[in-house]
């Protein structure tokens, strides 16, 4: 997976990802049309399919609205990389099949071309030539992500399976 990095700061809340006034809809394209509107109105015009959203601490804090990761995914974001995520956003993203990587340390700047190896949890910054390791996800989350989200996972397994082996 390869894309251009869009870099933002700490504590990006769900109101900034998708304002509450736009969340009451099942039309996911209309969510994407307002993604990050109050943070960077240009984002939705410049994001390309597969691009990487990079943020600092506590990305996605605030509301439990699943519309936040949906808006990012439908807008084309391929992966979100942050130092760490707010917990509901983190679960929601995995559940809808949007990969999220906790990378405590990296040198990614806006516009950097970045390669992501989801299996290894590795982030490679093509500009600096440096590799960074993401925090290991629990197996159940990798399985959900590999299935394409929780809906597909439960269709396949019927219930959760935690065995770490």
């Amino acid at each position, binding site marked *: 997976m390869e894309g251009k990095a869009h870099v933002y700061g700490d*504590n990006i809340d769900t109101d900034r990802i998708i304002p509450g006034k736009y969340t009451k809809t*099942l039309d996911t394209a209309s969510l994407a049309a307002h993604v990050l509107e109050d943070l960077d109105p240009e984002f939705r015009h410049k994001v390309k399919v597969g691009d990487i959203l990079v943020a600092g601490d506590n990305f996605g804090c605030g509301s439990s609205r699943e519309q936040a990761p949906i808006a990012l995914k439908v807008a084309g974001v391929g992966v979100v990389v942050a130092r760490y995520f707010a*917990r509901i956003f983190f679960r929601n993203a995995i559940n809808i099949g949007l990969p999220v990587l906790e990378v405590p340390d990296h040198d990614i700047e806006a516009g950097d071309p970045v390669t992501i190896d989801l299996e290894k949890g590795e982030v490679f910054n093509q500009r600096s030539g440096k590799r960074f390791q993401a925090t290991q996800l629990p197996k159940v989350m990798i399985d959900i992500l590999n299935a394409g989200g*929780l809906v597909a996972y439960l269709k396949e397994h019927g219930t959760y399976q935690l065995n770490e082996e």
Partner: protein
Amino acid sequence: MTISEKILSKKVGNLVKAGELIITEVDGVMATDTTAPYAIQAFQEMGGGQVWDASRCALIIDHAAPAPNERIANLHTMMREFAAQQHIHLFEIGEGICHQLMIEHQYVRPGDIFMGADSHTPTYGAIGAMACGVGSTDLAAVMKTGKIWLKVPETIRIVCHGPLQPGVTAKDLILYLVGKISISGATYQAVEFEGSAFENMTVASRMTIANMVAEMGGKTGYVNPKGLQLDYDFEAVFPDADAQYIQTLEFDVRDLGPQLSIPESPDQVENLEPHEGQAIQYAFIGTCCNGRLEDLQAAAQILEGKKVANGVRFLIAPASRSVLLDAITDGTLQTLVAAGATILNPGCGPCVGTHQGVPGNDEVVISAANRNFRGRMGNPHSNIYLAAPTTVAASALEGKITHPKKYA
């Protein structure tokens, strides 16, 4: 063991410790008109059928109620149809805010494990339930299986030595603590509040405390049940004396004064005094944080026989129909309306920026809600201060941020 470890161990049938991944049965779930439509869609995509236990599920129309447009009206219809098919109880427009209703109608009780598709679900820690906010797809999965996977959380223990000064409220205390812990300080963790500052608190005040665990990033939180009184019998879950905490923080709050969260994050908390005189155009009391009878009564006490300042809109949304009825019966509403307040139907009101009072450009709001992120109330070009209902009421009288002691 911590409260979370005790509740989860009892449910799964063996001792579990912080850090373990577990699958647990759930005692109850709820979703609102923001989260239910996606949950219903995901439930159908998972194969549909009947929910695991309709009596343990609730749907609430509160975030945009009554429907402000046809798009939302149709989402409400989708919820009503699903509820009817599944024999799930649906709380209609005007009945109140999800969190208030779950506690009032005993959908959640002490010691329960509850998953709510709303981030302020930890509010139920006010009565000692382990309650977590989840998204729509997680909620759908619980409706289908009756179970959820989760990590047993580490716990931060917050001890507050009181009593609080007269006129200083639970809201002032929790704003102060959110400022100390920060918006991310309890991420993935549980919070236990204990100490003399909490022991005499009403259930309503305890709900205000547990509610803002969400603004610390917490997974769940509890007000220690010492002093908790409910109108039914219950078994309180206390932490063990040798419980292992990731952190213990102690605060002497006997001299704490009114607090204010300044734009544009709930953890930007300061003493009220430096901000006195800041002009406001819009005052709001309501929400799952501060829309209960004691909040309305505190406002009425300040507004009694007075008028809201010219140029100020003062909106009040009771947390539930029961709160509204009580406020009618005891005359609180008479006082508030006579003073110039506009009463909205019970529900989330303008807190989420979807309906019922969006601030204009460059306007300043003082609100008893729990969030003041940019754009929260529907306009990114306005600013929101968060405060106790007492401070909101005093500020509405003067058209500027005002110390409530002036009207004590």
